[in-house]
C-alpha cells in the first residue's frame, strides 16, 4: 500500500542522497550515449536505402544487372563456353539478392536498318530480346508474329544520347526528342540479301540495356529462320533482377563465378563496403559510449542506494519488504530511463527529418521517419538498460 505521504518520506530517505546534479549528469550521459547509438544505426540504414537504389527518384535501372562471362585470352575462341548453362541459371536464382533471372537472346542473323528522308542513314542493327518482365516499361504494341510487317523495337536511351550530342552536331543533323524518334519509320533488311524486309518503329526506350530490343517472338523466329548458329541456344548474357545490387555478397558471388556486370553496379558495392566499414566502426564506438553511459547511470543508482543504506536497513526492520522498496526505487528511475530513451529517439527523428529534406534536394527519397532497424535498436537498448538497472536496484537493496 502506498500513498503520497509515504512516497514523500521514502523519497526523503532513499533518493535525496543522490544529488540533483549527479542525476542530471547521469541522465545527460544516457541521452548522449543512446542518441549516438541510434544515430549510427540511422546512418547505416539511410546509406543502405541510398545504395540499394530504393531512394533514387525515377531510376529503376539499379535493380537490373546484366551479366556475362568474362572473355579472357584463354576462352575467347570457345564461344560456347562463354554461354550460361541451365544449371548456372538455376544457381543464380539462389545467389544473394537475386530475385529473378532472364535470358538475353541475341539475334543470330544480320539486321540492316535504313532511315530515309532528311535523316538518311543506314546501319547494322544489333538486335536482342529479353523477357517482357525485364523491360523498364512494356510498350502498348509490343507484339510480333510471323507474317506481321511492322516490328516494334526498343532503343537504348544511350543511343539517342550519342545521336543527339555526338553524331547530329558533327553531321549537321537536327537533334531529336523521344517523341519524334518514335515517329521515324525504319526499313529493316532481315537475314541478309536472301532474307526479308520489314518496317519498324521505335516503341520505347530502355535505360539499362545498351542495345536494340525486339519482341522475343521475333528474335526466336529470326534465329530459327535465318540463324547462323541455330544449335547454340544457351544465352551469353543474363539480366538479373536484384533486390540490392550494392550488396557486397552479390558482388562477391559474381567475382567468384567469373561473371562480369555493369561497372556502375560494382562501384555501388565497393562504396557499400566502405560505408559498412565506416558505419560498423561508428556503431562499435556508439556501443562503447552507450555501455559507458549505462555504467555511469547504474553506478549512480548504486551510489544513491548505498548512501541510503542505513535508512534501507531500518525500513526493512520496520516491515518494508524488499519488493516494496524495489518498486519505489524502480518507479523513480525507470520513468527517467524511458524518458531519456524517448528523448534520444526524438533527436533521431529530427535528424531523419532533416536528412530527408537534404536528400530531397538531390533528387533522393528518404523516409521522414526512422525505419524499423532504428526502432529495433531503441527497443533492444531500452530493454537491456531496464534489465540491467532493475537487476542493479534489486542487488543493491538485497545487499
Amino acid at each position: 500500500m502506498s500513498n503520497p505521504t509515504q512516497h514523500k518520506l521514502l523519497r526523503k530517505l532513499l533518493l535525496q542522497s543522490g544529488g540533483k546534479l549527479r542525476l542530471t549528469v547521469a541522465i545527460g550521459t544516457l541521452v548522449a550515449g543512446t542518441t549516438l547509438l541510434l544515430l549510427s544505426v540511422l546512418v547505416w540504414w539511410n546509406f543502405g536505402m541510398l545504395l540499394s537504389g530504393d531512394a533514387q527518384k525515377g531510376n529503376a535501372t539499379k535493380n537490373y544487372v546484366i551479366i556475362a562471362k568474362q572473355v579472357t585470352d584463354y576462352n575467347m575462341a570457345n564461344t560456347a563456353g562463354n554461354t550460361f548453362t541451365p544449371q548456372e541459371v538455376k544457381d543464380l536464382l539462389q545467389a544473394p539478392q537475386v530475385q529473378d533471372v532472364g535470358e538475353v537472346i541475341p539475334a543470330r542473323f544480320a539486321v540492316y536498318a535504313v532511315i530515309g528522308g532528311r535523316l538518311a542513314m543506314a546501319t547494322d542493327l544489333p538486335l536482342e530480346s529479353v523477357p517482357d518482365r525485364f523491360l523498364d516499361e512494356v510498350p502498348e504494341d509490343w507484339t510480333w508474329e510471323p507474317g506481321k510487317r511492322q516490328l516494334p523495337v526498343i532503343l537504348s536511351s544511350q543511343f539517342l544520347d550519342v545521336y543527339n550530342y555526338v553524331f547530329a552536331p558533327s553531321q549537321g543533323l537536327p537533334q531529336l526528342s523521344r517523341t519524334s524518334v518514335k515517329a521515324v519509320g525504319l526499313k529493316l533488311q532481315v537475314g541478309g540479301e536472301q532474307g526479308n524486309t520489314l518496317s519498324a518503329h521505335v516503341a520505347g526506350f530502355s535505360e539499362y540495356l545498351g542495345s536494340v530490343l525486339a519482341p522475343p517472338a521475333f528474335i526466336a523466329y529470326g534465329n530459327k529462320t535465318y540463324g547462323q548458329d541455330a544449335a547454340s541456344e544457351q544465352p551469353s548474357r543474363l539480366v538479373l533482377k536484384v533486390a540490392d545490387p550494392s550488396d557486397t555478397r552479390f558482388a562477391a558471388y559474381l567475382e567468384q563465378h567469373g561473371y562480369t556486370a555493369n561497372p556502375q553496379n560494382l562501384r555501388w558495392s565497393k562504396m557499400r563496403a566502405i560505408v559498412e566499414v565506416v558505419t560498423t566502426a561508428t556503431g562499435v564506438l556508439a556501443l562503447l559510449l552507450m555501455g559507458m553511459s549505462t555504467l555511469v547511470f547504474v553506478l549512480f543508482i548504486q551510489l544513491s542506494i548505498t548512501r541510503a543504506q542505513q535508512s534501507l536497513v531500518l525500513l526493512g526492520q520496520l516491515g518494508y519488504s524488499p519488493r516494496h522498496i524495489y518498486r519505489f526505487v524502480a518507479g523513480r528511475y525507470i520513468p527517467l530511463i524511458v524518458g531519456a530513451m524517448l528523448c534520444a529517439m526524438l533527436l533521431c527523428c529530427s535528424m531523419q527529418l532533416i536528412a530527408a529534406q537534404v536528400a530531397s534536394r538531390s533528387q533522393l527519397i528518404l523516409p521522414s521517419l526512422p525505419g524499423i532497424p532504428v526502432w529495433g535498436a531503441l527497443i533492444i537498448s531500452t530493454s537491456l538498460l531496464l534489465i540491467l538497472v532493475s537487476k542493479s536496484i534489486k542487488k543493491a537493496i538485497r545487499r
Partner: protein
Amino acid sequence: MQLTMHNVLPNYLQPTPKERVSAIWGNTVSIQQGDLVSVQAPSGAGKTTFVQLLYGLRKDYTGTALWDNLAPNTTDEEALAALRTNNVSIVFQDLRLFGELTAMENIEIKRCQTNTTSTATAHEYLQRLGMSHKIDAKADTLSYGERQRIAIIRALMQPFNWLLMDEPFSHLDNSNRQKAIELIGEIVHARKAGMILADLNANNYFAYTQTLIM
C-alpha cells in the same frame, strides 16, 4: 497467533551455561496470544537477543522458534516483512528512529504502511504522551526519553497480534512511564494482542500472565 520455542540457544551462549538457569534458553516455551509476558534478566543475559530473534533480526541460534508455523530465522524476506507489518510490532531498545526525519514523520512512515490507524489517532497518542509540541522536531534533536515515546507511538501505528518491547521505559520519568503504560495497555487489550516486555528488573507495569526469568 501462538509463540512456541523449543531448545532455543544463541550461538554465543553455547555450550549451555551451567552456572545459570534460564526459563527461555534451552527450554520449551509456549505463549498464547493475549498473554502478557515479562522477561527479566540482568545485563548480558540475552534479553535483546531474545527479542531480536523473535522479530527475525537474528538468526545465529539453534533450536526452533515459531510464530504459529512461521520460523523467523528461515522464512524469506517478503514473509518476514509481512509478519513485521501485520502481526508483530516492536519497540527497540536502541529505538532506531530515522534521525533526519521529524518526530511526526517517524510515526507517519510506519502508519502509512497499512493505513489502519489515522493521523488523528497519531496526534491523540502524541498528546497523551506529551509530545505534541515536538512533532516537527527532527528525531536527532530529541532527548532519549522523547525518542523513546516516539518509538512507542510508532509501534502502535500498525496492526499487531504481538507487541515486543525491549526496555521501553528505561529513560522515562514516572509520570511519562505511567502514561505510556496506560496507552499501551489500552491498545493491547483492545486488539486482544499479546505482549512480551523485556526488562532488567521485576516490575508491575502490566498485569502479566507469565514471567520468564532469563
